[in-house]
């Protein structure tokens, strides 16, 4: 009998917790924000959120909770479209944020609402190689040499993969190569790809833990994390001819903040990114702060390099999507038979 009562109590308790979890409402004195972001920014936002929460509570006396959601940038955008109530979106690609504008979740001209066109920081794609760089990989043309194993995620399913592909394409174009040259180059590059993981962290595991491949194309900040965790077995190579300028724009989601009455706090939250404190944190996490005077102070960890904007390879992100990544477009043609 005792055991049976125990089971009953446990069952009721579990059911109770479950129901409470789904039903419990929000405390009116507590402001809650949901920030929907992309994968590698976990550590960055944790620190930024703590700092902003302290600042906000000191100024207003209200309790603030910031929830974070991370995942592939495109997947995250789709979740918001499908009803995830994000107050702010901080996604990897302009096209993912603008997809929300098309669904009328964001106001027209959302880029104009925050300083620097709503771009608090930027980043780029760099190479990670085995310690000592045994294959002598210095620049993009080295990646297509025979016998070089490349690790990069699938551009179709990963923001990191998209940027890596575009960086590779752009590296040919800025040297004056034609589009045909660029296509031939990326085809050769993807023939050297050994594993096409679905996401950025999957590629990092394949390269760093499984020790497959000679070079890993990844976000600059991820490269630093990867090298630090590998304890001397990996190192970063900044491609000599430069790389792509990755621009993760930020925006508050009008449709959500209007209903939740969180316009003001969402706006202050994003403006905080441009303050000295915010920009310093961004730099410490190896993202490049948009304010040049702050960036200048961190040149030791964010060395100067040529960064070509997406405009060098297409007019805008819509064109990037249709030209490279749509079904049957240039990326698919690499694998066409």
């Amino acid at each position, binding site marked *: 009998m005792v055991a049976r009562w125990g089971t009953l109590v446990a069952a009721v308790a579990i059911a109770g917790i479950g129901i409470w979890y789904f039903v419990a409402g929000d405390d009116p004195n507590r402001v809650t924000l949901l920030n929907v972001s992309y994968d590698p920014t976990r550590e960055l936002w944790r620190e930024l959120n703590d700092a902003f929460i302290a600042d906000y509570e000191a100024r207003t006396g209200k309790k603030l909770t910031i929830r974070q959601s991370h995942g592939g940038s*495109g997947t995250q955008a789709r979740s918001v479209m499908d009803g995830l109530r994000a107050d702010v979106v901080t996604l990897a690609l302009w096209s993912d944020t603008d*997809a929300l504008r098309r669904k009328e979740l964001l106001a027209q001209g959302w880029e104009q609402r925050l300083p620097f066109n709503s771009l608090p920081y930027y980043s780029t794609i760099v190479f990670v190689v085995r310690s000592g760089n045994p294959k002598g990989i210095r620049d993009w043309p080295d990646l297509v040499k025979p016998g070089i194993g490349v690790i990069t995620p699938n551009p179709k*399913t990963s923001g990191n993969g998209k940027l890596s592909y575009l960086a590779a394409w752009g590296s040919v174009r800025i040297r004056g190569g034609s589009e045909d040259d660029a296509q031939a180059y990326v085809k050769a590059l993807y023939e050297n790809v050994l*594993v096409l993981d*679905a996401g950025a962290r999957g590629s990092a595991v394949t390269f760093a833990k*499984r020790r497959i491949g000679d070079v890993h194309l990844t976000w600059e900040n991820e490269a630093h994390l990867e090298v630090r965790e590998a304890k001397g077995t990996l190192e970063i190579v900044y491609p000599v001819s430069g790389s792509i300028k990755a621009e993760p724009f930020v925006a508050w989601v009008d449709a959500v903040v209007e209903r939740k009455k969180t316009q003001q706090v969402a706006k202050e939250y994003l403006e905080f990114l441009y303050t000295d404190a915010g920009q310093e944190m961004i730099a410490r996490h190896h993202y490049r702060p948009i304010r040049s005077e702050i960036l200048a102070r961190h040149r030791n960890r964010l060395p100067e390099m040529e960064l070509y904007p997406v405009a060098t390879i297409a007019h805008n992100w819509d064109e990037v999507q249709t030209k490279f990544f749509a079904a049957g477009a240039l990326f*698919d043609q690499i694998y066409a*038979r």
Partner: protein
Amino acid sequence: MSSVNQRVLPGFGLSLGTTLFFLSLIVLIPLGACFLKASTLTWSDFADAVWTDRTRAAYLLTFGASLAAAVLNAVIGLLLAWVLVRYDFPLKRLFDALVDIPFALPTAVAGLVYASLYAPNGWFGQFLVPLGIEGAYSRLSIVLVLTFTGLPFVVRTLQPVLESLDADVEEAAASLGASRWQIFRWIILPSLWPGLLTGFALAFARALGEYGSVIFVAGNMPYRTEIAPVLIVARLEEFAYREATALAVVLLLFSFTLLAVINGLERWSRSYAS
């Protein structure tokens, strides 16, 4: 008042109603929505989305690997169920419980673990890869993880059947001079067929839909190790919902057909056995 209900068991209307309600809510309506979404495509768009060299290669791989895994599961599962039912040995209960692990473990974890074991620097990989056996980032790796995720189905469907077999039939056969192989082939196997087929079908169906473990271990190279669900996710990333559901519909139709065939086989073997 004469009752219209001629059934012996009461509550038929209520229980059927409840069944249909939950079946609709959980299975039929989501599937219907899938077909509805795909039906907004024109025929030629549908065909372009689902029938290219690359999608055909992916279907073939998905079905081929699932079939191989289900066959492996049938063999290993039969053996496991036999050992667990017929013999007594220390820690038997523990081994029995271990069979359910693939149900409980997130499949992505399984994928990561298999990749780390069979990668060239892994415990198994360091010996197998020099022999030319690539157990990670290859087609073989897909079969391996699918075998893992489907393992419990055959074991769990066969165990009760084996337990309910009457020993006296086997004893009678033995006393009439049948060899061990003859007993197994002509006495035991016929009663196991239906259960074996059910377990096989379940493991097969489970493998067709598996995504989480495969993407971590397969390498996802087009034409070689790219399964159909990867293509679906790729289309979703383009916000091409309709094309993605079109691919899903094709997979569903294939699966329905195969499951129907297996069910037919099972029914046939049941009537044959009795």
